[in-house]
């Protein structure tokens, strides 16, 4: 067990590398399996010094449900954006919104910013304050640009409840 | 029949590329032009995918992957340059 731990410090990342290499070559010939295995062991080892420690995913079932929900939301958000784009410009009510966040870790923040960009008529602009490591205890804010801002409080509440709460549970932070 | 539909789709994506070119030339600011260029990258991937279906050949996907990666890296590099005046600090 100890041997496996030193060889594969991050099993999920190694598995991802293995699968991506096979997909790149589009084959499962023995030679590709060998090269994929070598890369899956070597790359995490070589890049370990550059990486900051991140909280692990604690609840995989919830994470899968989160992915499914985000994919569904992407489709719905697109239909909404298309409706806005095809309508006249003067009907748009663009605006900036500042969302106070409860999570402070870098990885959940990145995932939250990414999902918010892809989903409900919003693009995340910045996570403030910048320094994630020096003052990671300080509360974070997410600056958003919204294409059609109707009710600020409602939007903030829906982002917090729909995306932030599940992320908090997935990472248990 | 499928080939005709894919051909029409390719015409649509071609129009989208021309619109991107217009946005690229119109600007008015540098981030605007960069956004247009990035969209052009993505649309050319779409065109390659359609051509893959049209020609029934999976040879083009590697080119599509390359365009995706180069497009992403170059856009981020230019953004970084605009933010800091330097790409690698």
């Amino acid at each position, binding site marked *: 067990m100890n041997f496996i731990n030193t060889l594969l410090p991050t099993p999920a990342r190694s598995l991802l590398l293995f699968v991506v290499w096979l997909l790149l070559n589009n084959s499962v010939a023995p030679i590709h399996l060998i090269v994929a295995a070598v890369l899956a062991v070597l790359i995490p080892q070589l890049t370990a010094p550059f990486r900051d420690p991140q909280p692990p995913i604690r609840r995989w079932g919830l994470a899968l449900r989160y992915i499914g929900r985000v994919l569904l939301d992407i489709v719905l958000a697109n239909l909404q954006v298309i409706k806005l784009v095809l309508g006249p410009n003067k009907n748009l009510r663009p605006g*900036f919104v500042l969302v106070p966040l409860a999570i402070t870790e870098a990885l959940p923040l990145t995932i939250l910013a990414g999902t918010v960009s892809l989903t409900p008529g919003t693009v995340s602009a910045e996570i403030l304050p910048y320094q994630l490591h020096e003052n990671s205890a300080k509360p974070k804010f997410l600056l958003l640009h919204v294409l059609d801002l109707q009710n600020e409080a409602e939007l903030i509440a829906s982002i917090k409840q729909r995306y932030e709460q599940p992320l908090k549970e997935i990472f248990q932070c | 029949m499928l080939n005709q539909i894919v051909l029409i789709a390719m015409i649509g994506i071609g129009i989208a590329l021309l619109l991107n070119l217009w946005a690229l030339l119109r600007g008015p600011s540098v981030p605007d032009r960069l956004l247009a260029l990035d969209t052009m990258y993505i649309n050319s*991937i779409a065109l390659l995918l359609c051509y893959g279906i049209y020609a029934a050949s999976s040879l083009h996907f590697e080119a599509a992957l390359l365009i995706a990666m180069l497009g992403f890296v170059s856009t981020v590099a230019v953004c970084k340059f605009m933010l800091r005046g330097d790409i690698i600090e």
Partner: protein
Amino acid sequence: MTWLEWIIALLVIAGTLFVLLGSVALIKLPDFYTRLHGPTKATTLGLGSLVLASMVFFNFIEQQLNLQQLLIALFLFISAPVTAYMLIKAGLHQKLAPTAGTQQQELMKQRDKLAKGE
């Protein structure tokens, strides 16, 4: 045409429409910040459905196992928000003027203070 070909045709048409509308948004919307919404959302979803169409085509009609396209979709869905984030950061840094009627424009000025953690 078989029903599989109809599915492919539907996905290709939907993908093209999304891609086209993303590009129309780029031309039509009034300022940089609103223009950003078209390409990050519509174009990404359009490409997603095109990838789905070509996966159905190669795996079921051409009868060859081909999952490489999945990689294109995966990469684009990861890179699209990052690109948008970098672009809007560059736009804010250059202090591009938002269109008249943008709500809460004062947040653009406040962000310098917030960035330092005050």
